[in-house]
Every structure is written in C-alpha cells, then in structure tokens.
C-alpha cells in the first residue's frame, strides 16, 4: 500500500487549514502500517474535521455531532479485526461529546481517536469552543469567553486513558509518528492535534502555536510512563507540550470483554436450537 492508496479525493478545506496536515499524516501512518483500506474504518464527527471521510479512502461513518466514540466502539467491538479510527473536533469531542470522551478513556476499547483542536467551531462559522482561551472574542462571545479552557489530554489521563498524546498539524512527521504509535497501542489512544483554523481563528495561528509548543522529545527528564510527570507538564498553562504524554499497558476492554478471538461480525449467524433449548430450561 502506498500513501496514495488512501487518497480518494483532493480535500476542499480552506487553503492553509491545519486539517490538511492531519490528512497527510494519516495517509502516511496507514501506509507505514500497511493497513488495507478496506480494513480501516474512519468514524467522524460533525464539523470541518468530519469531512475527512470524503477524502480518505477507507470505510467511513459520518454520524452525529459528538457521538464518534460510541459509534467507533460499536464498530470495533463488533469486528475486532478492523482498524478503527475516530476523528473528532474540539467542539465534537470536548463540548457535546465530552461525556463519551471520559467514558471512552475509562473503557479503553482498542481504537484511536484524533481530536482536531482548532480551538473554534469551524463549520458553524467560528463560535467559541471549550478549548478557546479565556477572553476569546468570537461571534458567540463578543465580550470575550468567560470559561476556563479545557485540556483534553489532561482529562484523558485522569479518566483512565492508556495512551495520551498531542501533535501539531504544522509538524507532520512528528504527528505521523504519534499516529503510528497510537495505532499499535492496545487500548484507547487519544491524539489531540493542534490544528489552525485559518478562516475563523485569528489567535491560534501557526505562528502562535509554534511559539507556544514544547516538544517533549526535547525534554530528557520526561517519561511517558509517569502519570505524575504527565500531569505536571500539562499543568503549566504557558506552554503546550506535544508528543507522547502518557502511555500505560493495561488489558483493553476488548481483551476483557469479548467472549472469543473470533470477531463477532465473523461468527456464523444461525438459530442454535441446542443452546437455546438448554437456556429455556431456566424458565420451566
């Protein structure tokens, strides 16, 4: 599989949009892992990020705003042989969908979730999102946002997340590496991607992100095995760490719950009279 096996159409996001970088990284990661397109399912949310399906050659599910994670878990649990990728946005995952986000981290189904964090509601024309910084002025907060911004990776870690990372769409190689790592992790992998919205967010631009990120690879003291450390680097509000923040090996929900190694979707469906008869005895 080459990279362009995954390229279905040229995207029509605004010129310069950060999601282009994510699209490229995803294709690279898939190619590097040699995942056949038909074994990949991409579940997307509603938002600019949700258009990914239209450009990426893989099975796609474009459902409801905020509900990517339950859908993706359903896809994966039903057929554990698939590579399942949920693509969400800062509004999709952290506003309307944050309940599912918390529980996805607790549940630890073996799939990957990419949150395209442009710190704004792109598709609905620029409203303030949960990651917009305090005081952010937009059509929906003309006098400045009054709420403390939310930090997805931090929330993921305290919710029991087993693989928590952050990338930046402006550094595609780094992002590609993270995605590859996340896809090979056994359990729920979160990769939040800082991704400028060139049309609606005039604050969190490429330049701004570049000035604020710190790459954890440069911090030799840091270890992604250490939850305390991870929470520590995430508590410094002035800097945005990128890289693998936390990683833990823990049996996935799939390991713990699925009754067998045969994917449910691949078991023959018939009326097993013998088994059912035995069960009916309970009611006699």
């Amino acid at each position: 599989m080459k990279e362009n096996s995954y390229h279905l159409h040229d995207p029509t996001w605004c010129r310069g949009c950060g999601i282009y970088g994510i699209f490229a990284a995803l294709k690279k990661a898939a190619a590097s892992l040699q995942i056949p397109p038909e074994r990949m399912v991409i579940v997307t949310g509603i938002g600019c990020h949700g258009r990914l399906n239209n450009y990426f050659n893989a099975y796609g599910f474009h459902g409801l705003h905020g509900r990517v994670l339950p859908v993706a878990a359903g896809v994966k649990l039903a057929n554990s042989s698939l590579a399942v990728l949920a693509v969400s946005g800062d509004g999709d995952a952290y506003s309307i969908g944050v309940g599912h986000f918390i529980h996805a981290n607790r549940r630890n189904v073996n799939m990957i979730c990419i949150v395209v964090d442009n710190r704004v509601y792109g598709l609905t024309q620029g409203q303030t999102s949960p990651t917009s910084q305090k005081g952010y002025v937009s059509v929906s907060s003309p006098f400045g946002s009054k709420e403390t911004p939310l930090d997805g990776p931090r929330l993921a870690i305290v919710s029991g997340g087993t693989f928590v990372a952050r990338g930046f769409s402006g550094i595609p190689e780094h992002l590609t590496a993270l995605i590859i790592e996340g896809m090979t992790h056994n359990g729920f992998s979160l990769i939040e991607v800082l991704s400028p919205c060139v049309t609606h967010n005039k604050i969190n631009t490429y330049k701004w992100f570049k000035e604020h990120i710190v790459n954890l690879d440069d911090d030799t003291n840091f270890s992604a095995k250490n939850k305390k450390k991870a929470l520590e680097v995430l508590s410094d509000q002035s800097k945005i760490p990128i890289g693998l923040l936390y990683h833990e090996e823990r049996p996935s929900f799939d390991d713990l719950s699925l009754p067998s190694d045969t994917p449910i979707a691949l078991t023959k469906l018939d009326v097993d009279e013998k088994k059912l008869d035995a069960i009916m005895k309970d009611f006699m």
Partner: protein
Amino acid sequence: MISDIQVMIAGYAGDGVLFTGNVLGKILKRQGWEVVTYRDFPSNIRGEAMNYTIRASLNKIYSRGDYIDVLMAFNCDAILRHIKSVGENGVILCEGSVTESVRLSPKKGRTFHKFPMRELAKKNFRSEIFKNTILLGGLCYILDLDMKIIREVLSEVFLKRKGKEIVEKNIQALRLGCDEAEKIIKEEERHSLEERPDKDRLFLSGDEAIALGALAAGCRFFAAYPICPATEIWQWLLKHIHKFNGLVVQTEDEIAAINMALGAAYSGVRAMTSTSGPGASLMMEGFSLAGMAEIPIVVAHVQRVGPSTGLPTRPEQSDLNQWVFGAHGDFPRIVLSPGTIEECFYFMADAFNLAEKYQCPVILLTEQNYGQNFYTVEKFDLSRVSIDRGMLLSQDELLKIEDYKRYALTENGISPRVVPSMANGIHMVEGNEHDEKGYRDEDEEIRIKMMNKRMTKLNIAAKDVIPPKLWGKEESDIGIIGFGSTICPIREAMDQLEEKGISTKYLQVRTLWPFSAAEVEEFMSSCNTVFVVENNYSGQLSRLIQGQGVECSRVHKINKYSGHTFRPVEIAESMLGVLEQ
C-alpha cells in the same frame, strides 16, 4: 372444583413481596396451572405500599382477574386498601401485629385471620427473613399445594446462592406456615387446586421473552443504560450472550447506547438497545440517523407512565406517537407491537429480519406490565425462528460488482449492503444527504431521488410487516381495536360479554408503522360499533387510525391512564354503557 384463583400478596417495599410472589407463581406453574402475575410497585426505595397479584387458572387466562380470592397482607393497612377487591368468599390473612387493631370487619362471606408471620419467623428462626416462606406455607395449606413441587422450587431458588442449610431452614419454615394455617383456616375456606401435567411450558416475563427472542434471532450486540422497566432485558441477556460469541455493554447513557449499537450494526452484527420513556427521548437523534444512513437497528421500548419521569414502574401506552412521529425529518421506520408474551419472543426475529431487509430502524414497543410480569406460555418453537439478512452481500457477491454503491438507487429502494472489512466495498455511511456512494451531496435531484428511495422502502415493507390479528366472533358487529398488552383485559372482557350473550370481535394491531390502514378500515366497516381501547390519555392509536383517513365517526374511545392496566370488568362495563344506550 376450583378452576380460577387469584392471590394477592401486599405489604411495604422491603417486605419481600416480589420474591414471595415469584416463588408462588413458579409453584402454581409447576402444578400445571396457567399463571399470570401483576406487580403493583411504586418506584421506591423502602417503606411504600406495594402488592403483587398471582392469578392461576385451569383455562387460558390473559390478565389479572377482577377479584381477589386470597389476600396475604403484611400489614392491616393493606387490607384497607384492597378490601374492595376481595371477592365474596375471599380469605384474608394478615400479619396484624399485636399493637395494631384491625379496624374493619370483613364483609359477608369474606373471612379474616390473623397470621403472625413475622412473629413466627422471629420466634422460630430468630430472623424476620423467614416470614415470606411462612407465608408461602400458609398458602400451601389454603391452596393444598404439592409439597414436593414447593421443595423443588425452594431448592432451585436457594441452593446455588445460599447453600443446603438455608434450603432446609426454608422448608422448615414452610412446614411451620402450613401447620399454623391448619390451626386457623376452616376447611371450607380452602381452595384446593387440582394438579395438571406441566409439560414443555415456560414461566417468564415479557422482558425475558424479548431477551430470549433476541438471542434466538441472532442479536449479538446489545448496548444499553439502566432504566425501569427495560433493564431486565439486557441483564438477563448478559448471562447468556457470551455463549453465542456476543456482547452486552452498559453504556454511560442512552445516547451512547444507540450510537454504539449503530456502530455495531454497521459492522455487520445484529445489534440492539432497549429503553423506556426518558431514554427513548434521548435516542431520537440516533433514531433519525438510522433512518437516514439506512442502518438496521432494533430498539426494544418497554413503556412506562409518562410524561417525563412519570411513574417509572407502571404501565402505559403513551409512547406510540413518539416512535411513529418523533425525531426530526421524514424517514422510514417500523414499529411492532407484540400482544402476547409469545409475540414478545417471536417478534424479535421479525424485528431483526425487517431491520435488515429494509435497512431501517425497527422498534419493538411493549409495556411494563408485559415487561415485568410473568406468564405461563408454551415452550417457544425455535423452528419458527428464521434469520433473513436481506440484501447483505457476501464477499464473493461483492467482488462481482463493478462499482459498488452503498446507496444504489433501485426500484424498491433497497440497496445491497456490505460491511467494513470487505474488499471492493469501500463506501461511506452518512447522516448528511448523500449520493449513491454515500458521499455528501446537496444537489436537488439527488436529494429527491434519495428521499424517494428511502421512503419507497417503507411502502414495500408495508406489505411485509406483521398484519393485525382477528380474535373473537368474526360475524359480530361489535368491534374492538387495540395494540399491545391491552389484549389481555380485552379478551377477558370479551368472555364476560359473551357470557352475557354479547358477541364481539377484536382486531389486534401488531404493526403500528407502516400502519395497517386497509385491514383496520375493513374491520371497521364490518362493525356497527367500534371501541378503541388504549392505556393512555389522548388515544394515540385512535388518532393514528384517523390520520390514515379511516372514517372514525362510529368509534368510541376507552382510555385508562391511571398507571394501571384495565381490569377486564372496566372494559366490559364501558362497552355495555355504550351498547345499552
């Protein structure tokens, strides 16, 4: 010889009423009787009044009866509440603790006995907990039950969970109750039950029948959130589905439940969820997605009293409107309404087959009184269950297709379906309007074609869904129409009317959408008088019928919305009121 008996056990929450009633029901079933139970429980923690009715008969019965033959009361208050329902020769046994004075003398024929279960339990076993088995012992004497059967049932109940010693202690308690009863009950107050063979019969609730039906129908993924009175479905399934390589997931809420089920269904697994009132409202968005994206999914909805939190443990039929008309936009949907416990089981296979054949959401709409009450039924016939996956292609079939289109425009609106992992089948499942391949498209022509395609499926399905069923005397010109569990009191009421020389017939609507308009119209035109009987305020079925353009001027509505099912006599009397005018 007694052929029909109704026992009520009444007390407060925490008294073990449910447990005692269930055991009694099982015993009566094993004696070969037809059994129907009715639970009247508040949504509560402790300390509120509740009661449980067990009716048994040698003949086919459908619902709780009108009068109580034996009332076993844990407190005097319960007698006050239920005395008016006690039949003429009824026997009342009451815990009646010494400090309480029984403030009423039973009316003519009815006899009252003090039966100090709690006291006996404490004195003999140093634990109140045995009061329930003592009560059963009392009933055992009154009803002349078979000790062997009781022993059997008690060991089934206690052996695994509590061990041999507890079984023995309970049998002692049972004997004690029996002996005590013998001291106080006169021979003529006993209702000796004949024994009949109990062969190949089941005793189960509608929720259990639905779960069993789901399992038989190939449901292999169930995602749900706890809610009365639907939780029993998946809590039962949970114990068995792994034997079929299936999975139940308790989700964080109903929204996750329906979406997770949608994901699993899309992956090619027969998937469902279950819910009630408020949970159903939360599922509306996912319901609409299932319609648009053409994902086969089944929702079992066990109705409780609404609106809002309403009365969570009581029956009503007020969520028909929601599933037939709720959720935004026009999309195809199928709503089935089982009228018997058997149908709860068999309709599950229909539900999944219809969902896959028409690639749309299918709702199985039932009610709390089925969901949580127990009935004797013939063992389910598994040869009647078959699995039809509709236009689900195999990998081989898919490979032969040149340019696979998930939403191909076909004459009947049904497009061949494939699932992820299949080579040559890559497509998108989309909640936005889309083209044949599933990609978002806003073109006017496409939109019109796609709407037509989706809605056409429903027209085809209309000919394939479960037709209404006719009961009673076809030649009668007095007709009754209803759906779901009201069939129980209706059939009993029909028998009561028949006894008075009034023949009636009943059309049981079994598919609420697409609506069986032609059959209903035909039925109505064969009647002079039509009664639409519903357990709700507004007459949702009546309006549904009317909305189909069926002439409804001769319709009389009989509605009950008190949080209880009809007693048969209520229906019979309402009908007589109209007929005698």
